[in-house]
């Protein structure tokens, strides 16, 4: 409706396949429902009524890694959880992105000790780090939008080389 009115009778949009594919990826990104600790509660808040992440095409959290393309690592990753997290990441189909939500996932946060990975980038490659302990839902939404910016600039040939 919107686009037809703007274009009048032309009815034709010219674009590149790349930007078309990237646009559709950003409009229906499915995060994996994977909460670890405190940040998971803020992730739930971001999904709930007041913040409502579905405004950005994100209302569907998939419990299965095989159906999702965005992993939000929400919380501290312990030494016992690290291999599990890696396996979940490996099970996700390409292309996939990772957000390290919160200080613990980004750099270990206040827990500089034997039990916690000092940043989840020791386990999986991270695209966006969101700071805060825990980050506000707005901060998480901003992180997601930053991933969208990254997705919009992606080239097919880079994905082929990856």
């Amino acid at each position, binding site marked *: 409706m919107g686009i037809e009115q703007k274009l009048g009778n032309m009815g034709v949009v010219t674009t590149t396949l790349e930007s078309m594919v990237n646009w559709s990826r950003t409009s229906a990104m499915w995060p*994996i*429902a*994977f*909460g*670890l*600790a*405190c940040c*998971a*509660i*803020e992730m*739930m*808040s971001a999904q*709930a*009524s*007041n913040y409502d992440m579905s405004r950005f095409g994100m209302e569907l959290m998939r*419990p299965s*890694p095989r159906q999702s393309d965005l992993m939000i690592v929400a*919380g*501290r990753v*312990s*030494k*016992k*959880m*690290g*291999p*599990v997290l*890696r*396996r*979940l990441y490996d099970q996700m189909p390409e292309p996939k992105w990772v957000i390290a939500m919160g200080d613990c996932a980004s750099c270990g946060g*206040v*827990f*500089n*000790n*034997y*039990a*916690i990975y000092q940043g989840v980038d*020791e*386990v999986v490659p991270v695209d966006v780090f969101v700071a805060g*302990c*825990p980050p*506000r839902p707005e901060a998480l939404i901003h992180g997601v939008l930053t991933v969208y910016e990254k997705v919009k600039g992606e080239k097919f040939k880079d994905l082929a080389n990856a």
Partner: protein
Amino acid sequence: MSQIEEVSLEKFKHLVSERALTGETMLLNMGPQHPSTHGVLRLLLELDGEIIVNCIPDIGFLHTGIEKNMEAKTYQKAEVMTDRLDYMNTMGNNLAYVMAVEKLVDLDVPVRAQGLRVILTELQRIASHLVWLGTSGLDLAAMSMFLYCFREREQILDIFELVSGQRMMTTYFRPGGVWRDVPVEFEKAVRDFIKIFPRRIDEYESLLTKNPLFIDRMVAIGCLSKDVALQYGVTGPSLRASGVDWDLRKARPYCGYEQYDFNVPTRTEGDTYARYLVRIDELRESLKIVEQALNKLPLGPMRSENRKFVPPPRSEIGVSMESLIHHFKLWTEGFPAPKASIYCAVESPRGELGLMLEGDGGPKPLRVHLRTPSFDNLAVLPQIVKGHLVADLVAILASIDIVLGDIDR
């Protein structure tokens, strides 16, 4: 990074029945990534068809070393760790910790600070129960509960942000009082909440309490008898739903709880539905306490005047040499605590949260140990799920309200 350990059946054959070894029953792994385990809990299920024969919880996926980290920090700095234990009950954890420190060094707390502590911990209890109600509704396919509960929870979080500047990890209570006095908007924000919330509880109840689908999933599921509950050290609403009238706020009053008029809701059925009803009633009782505490809240200092343990106000530092010295000493060295061992317990939304603190005469604790309610409440899970369907396990797990940060710490 180490790999996931492949375990053979030999290793845990003492935990499963004989039939699992012959392949008659099936072993199924539930978690650590599962939407209804409320975190990173792994349950190893032995199934006969869809009936649970055995359930073996595997914890430790969120082990954070919080106790050890606290031992490496001074008494003031260790408090930030307690927020991240049971992240639904941050104010309550702070309360347990500051009360333990106050008991260890024998520090007085002004009446206003006591009142503020009661108001905020009760609001936290409501917020925690709301998350529980929302997520367990979600597990039982009552999706709208989640959206309604989080709407009210945001209002409480706004109050927390008002007083402490943070939504969840508040660290607002400090040894000897609270961090700073509440802003003027605080009273109106709490009054607004008290005004709207009773109607909202009715709304939740109209959606769930008499809903036949909900009753079918909840009644006579996961019955926990009084004796088993006491044997396993279950506390909190799960214990009270089994007919034991035990609430630390009544039994061992702290923070001036004895001056407030409230009931301890109990049930005798001990099933999932009874646990739900107890928590719904607790929402109303907590609101009653908040209202009374707010009406009684006196004016006055919000921190102790004992400068050996409590830093002086910022305004004094510029004009008084003594204040400057106290401030410097407290923030560089901390305060020493005597060589003693104390235990201090509060009623968290999940049960008895206890903290053992051992001083060694220096500014850092020698040993910190936590008795966390979720740990003991989870221990009883294998007993109450036996013979139920896998779908009922989801309802039972939701009803005992565990927080993995609390279990693994």
